[in-house]
């Protein structure tokens, strides 16, 4: 009897260390998703934010189908029209359909913001994890540099870089790439510092010591074991940052320092609408409302996530 028990036990250990099959993985992910949805219901703010974000993303993904007109096509038979069944938001002074322009502009703006934040995380996460994990002089030098960058006013950097892009006549893709680079780079110090502070707490825990004992490499422990436990504050921060980045891009293109005219752009369209505000005020309303909706969605979702992750904050 005893020997069978032992054998059974041994078999289950062998089973336990076997890598999970695809079906098992999917089942596990499904459970995680269910948990996440359950958590979402705990905070009304997060739920509203999530609904607003999901509907925004669906609309932006479907833009090529649901935008009825070419956003840059001028139609002189129908300029400066009021909202109608043909043109939901009316048309601008060149007869371009504002509804289509708002959709296409949003697609571009939100993608730039997402790429910028991902770029910032891609530098900031390894930087912060390694700085916090190795500690000592690596950490002191690394964090001193981050402090210096944080003290540097980001908006001035954007103005300089956008001016450079303008003087080099960068357009379209290259202009967007420069924006992604500048806005992402400005985000990395904040991300690095946030990750580092969680890593400092996490690396004291027993599982880290256990991994050392069985001879895992430092890089593996830092990036694959510690990092996943430090992500939640970062996700909150990145969400709120997305809203902020959208505001900055919109402000720059409002100043006329973004993409050159025919491209649909919320900031630039708002600025163009100002000249005809007396006769046609509504064209200044739609792109602005679109910015507000998007930024509010990110802020609500970020606030709600923070409440869920840090219940002490929710009590307040």
């Amino acid at each position, binding site marked *: 009897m005893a020997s069978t028990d032992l054998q059974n036990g041994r078999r289950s250990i062998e089973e336990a260390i076997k890598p999970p099959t695809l079906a098992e993985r999917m089942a596990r992910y499904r459970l995680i998703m269910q948990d996440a949805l359950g958590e979402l219901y705990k905070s009304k703010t997060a739920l509203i934010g999530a609904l607003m974000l999901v509907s925004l993303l669906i609309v932006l993904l479907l833009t090529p189908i649901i935008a009825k007109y070419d956003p840059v096509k001028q139609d002189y038979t129908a300029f400066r029209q009021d909202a109608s069944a043909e043109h939901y938001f009316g048309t601008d002074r060149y007869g371009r359909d504002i509804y289509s322009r708002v959709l296409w502009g949003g697609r571009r703006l939100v993608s730039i913001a997402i790429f910028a934040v991902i770029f910032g995380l891609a530098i900031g996460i390894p930087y912060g994890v390694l700085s916090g994990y190795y500690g000592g002089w690596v950490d002191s030098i690394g964090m001193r540099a981050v402090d*210096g960058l944080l003290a540097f*006013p980001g*908006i*001035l950097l954007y*103005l300089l870089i956008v*001016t450079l892009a303008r003087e080099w006549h960068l357009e379209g893709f290259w202009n967007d790439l420069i924006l992604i680079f500048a806005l992402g780079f400005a985000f990395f110090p904040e991300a690095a510092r946030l990750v580092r502070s969680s890593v400092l707490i996490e690396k004291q825990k027993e599982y880290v010591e256990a991994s050392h004992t069985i001879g895992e490499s430092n890089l593996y422990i830092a990036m694959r074991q510690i990092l996943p436990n430090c992500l939640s504050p970062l996700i909150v921060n990145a969400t709120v940052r997305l809203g902020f980045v959208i505001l900055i891009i919109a402000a720059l293109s409002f*100043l006329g320092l973004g993409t050159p005219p025919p491209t649909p752009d919320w900031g630039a369209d708002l600025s163009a609408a100002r000249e005809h*505000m*007396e006769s046609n005020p509504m064209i200044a309303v739609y792109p602005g409302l679109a*910015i507000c909706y998007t930024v509010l969605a990110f802020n609500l979702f970020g606030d709600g996530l923070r409440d869920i992750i840090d219940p002490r904050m929710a009590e307040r």
Partner: protein
Amino acid sequence: MLIYAINRILQMIPVLFVLTVVVFTFVQLLPGDVIDTLIGDEQAEDPELRKALEEEYGLDKPIYMQYGIWLGKALQGDFGKSLITRRPISVELFESIPATVYLGLVGIGLSIIIAVPLGSIAAVKRNSATDYAAQVTSLIGISIPEFWFAIMAVLVFSLHLGWLPSSGYVSPFEDLGQSLYYLILPALAVGFRQAAYTTRLTRSSMLDEMNKEYVDTARSLGFSEPKVIYKYTLRNALIPTITISGLQLANLLGGTVVLETIFAWPGIGQAIYLAIIDHDYPLIQAGILVLGIIVVCVNLLVDLLYRVLNPRVALN
């Protein structure tokens, strides 16, 4: 305290160094010849004149020497001449600083007057309808781009109702009444976003303070509730609030570039904007540098003020 202050000032040096390097590199990265860029092309046709200019600007020397020469001149307040107006840049910039300071201070003052009562009432009546209203309003407030708020305010108060001027500036030393009349809309636009931030801050730091033991002690001593809240709790809660809203000043100064442009407000933000539009590189360079130095210095002052207001921090 003195040691801390000296330490902080020493920490500023690398930040300022990076700022000057970035601003110096900016002009090097512009397309075309530096002589054309700095002097304007119409003057530099003659090859002998070019040679003389190259020597005067030290362009025949290696790049770090050029940086040294430029920095030396900048430290003496010599930024060269504007390409457009041909006046010394230092004069142009220093004439524009008072208008920015005027707008910024009134804007911040306005935001504190709105936000501190709103935030503390929300905290005292936690989870009441008032609290939710304050939370929702402030969340929407931080999601509205200030330039759109400005446009909508102009649309309603200038174009529709005709109560307030849509743009312009009168110095408060010339005619205070008229000056305030022109100030209302720009100051509101600066203040509302700041107010939304400050409301959230005041609310959460009030809630932090209200959980502390001294509040219970004050109550048990039989002090009236308003006295406990407004004399003791609020005072302590205001320390972090004021500090963080002071550190927000960097964002606020960035926002003034947009708002000053909309309201034709002759401050440093509008000066930089016009320089970017006119390709006036030396003025862009100097403007960004001066704005950056202002931001770094304000951050230092706020940090030191925080220590003075709250001596307990020094013990930690």
